[in-house]
């Protein structure tokens, strides 16, 4: 069986590892920083383009269709896209703790909170804000084309099922579960710290 000073043997063993770790030059790191900034700019661009295309789609078709459901769907759709742009931008603007200035406990807790908050933001009502306009618009589209293109009705039902099923029901349930998982970890951490008198 082990003797009391075994951890010292393990420390020697431990220090034999990691001698061939990757080496980075400051120039490489500078390039990586540039890449990270470029990636961030690109993701903003993609986000902007996606929302712009959706908003433009609703706005352009607005004068051509007189169906009331489509019109309500288009107006709500533009508002919903605007709302989600704000949600995403606010999430990205959230100040993350500085790894150099924050202790391990504080940093770990802040990371768990950040993940929990992101997942708990994707609640059913928030997803409904995004999904409902599309469903209304689709139903209006089906009404408009029901006689000239009956296949369109099928397409709309399929579309609505996917939207409803994935975004309004499945996604919030999944994210709620994940948010709860992070909250449980926060509770476990808090309980451990309380036990240890912090």
């Amino acid at each position, binding site marked *: 069986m082990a003797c009391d000073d075994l951890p010292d043997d*393990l420390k020697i063993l431990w220090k034999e590892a*990691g001698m061939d770790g990757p080496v980075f030059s400051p120039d490489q*790191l500078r390039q990586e920083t540039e890449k990270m900034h470029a990636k961030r700019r690109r993701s903003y661009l993609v986000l902007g383009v996606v929302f712009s295309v959706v908003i433009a789609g609703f706005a352009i078709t607005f004068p051509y269709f007189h169906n009331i459901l489509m019109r309500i769907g288009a107006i709500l759709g533009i508002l919903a896209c605007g709302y989600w742009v704000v949600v995403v931008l606010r999430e990205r603007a959230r100040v993350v703790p500085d790894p*150099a200035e924050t202790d391990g406990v504080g940093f770990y807790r802040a990371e768990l909170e950040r993940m929990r908050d992101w997942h708990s933001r994707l609640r059913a009502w928030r997803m409904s804000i995004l999904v409902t306009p599309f469903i209304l618009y689709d139903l209006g589209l089906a009404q408009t084309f029901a006689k000239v293109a009956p296949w369109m009705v099928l397409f709309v039902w399929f579309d609505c099922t996917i939207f409803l099923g994935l975004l309004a029901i499945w996604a919030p349930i999944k994210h709620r579960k994940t948010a709860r998982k992070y909250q449980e970890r926060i509770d476990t951490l808090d309980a451990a710290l309380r036990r240890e008198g912090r």
Partner: protein
Amino acid sequence: MDRTESQDEFYRKVAAEYGASLARMAYAYEADPDLRRDLSQEIHLALWRSFEKFNGRCSLRTWIYRVAHNVATSHVVRQTRGKRSAPAFLTLEEAGVQASGENVEISADRHQALAHLFALIQRLDPLDRQVILAYLEDLDAESIAEITGLSVANVWTKIHRIKEVLVRQFHRGGRDGL
């Protein structure tokens, strides 16, 4: 950091001195080789950037480990996001209980012992990981407390538990010393 010393020069020195230690840390936080390289890069990047504001209020060693641990913790939290199959983290006590069936001889197969040690650490809760890694890197309790934010007394308690877990998991084998 010496004001006249550039951030790059300072980073080079630190990377040369602490490179192996940072590599071990990355290994202890990430088992997948590709993700491990990404994590190593993230750690080095965060360190290089942090030296811009290093003010000497704490020791350089404490600063380096704090940055590295926090970046690695963030990596671990991100990696377990939404993974249903992700194993739950163990506390030191749970690791001790689970260890009773497996006892590795250090001197017989050093690679196996090391792999076993890394596997043990990779399953621990990030906070316990920070303590065990700092302990293995020979940091004193005061420095570990400064890095983790735990009290010195708590750190001592954890170190005591760590030793118990390690003793239960490993044995020295036939010959003395290594």
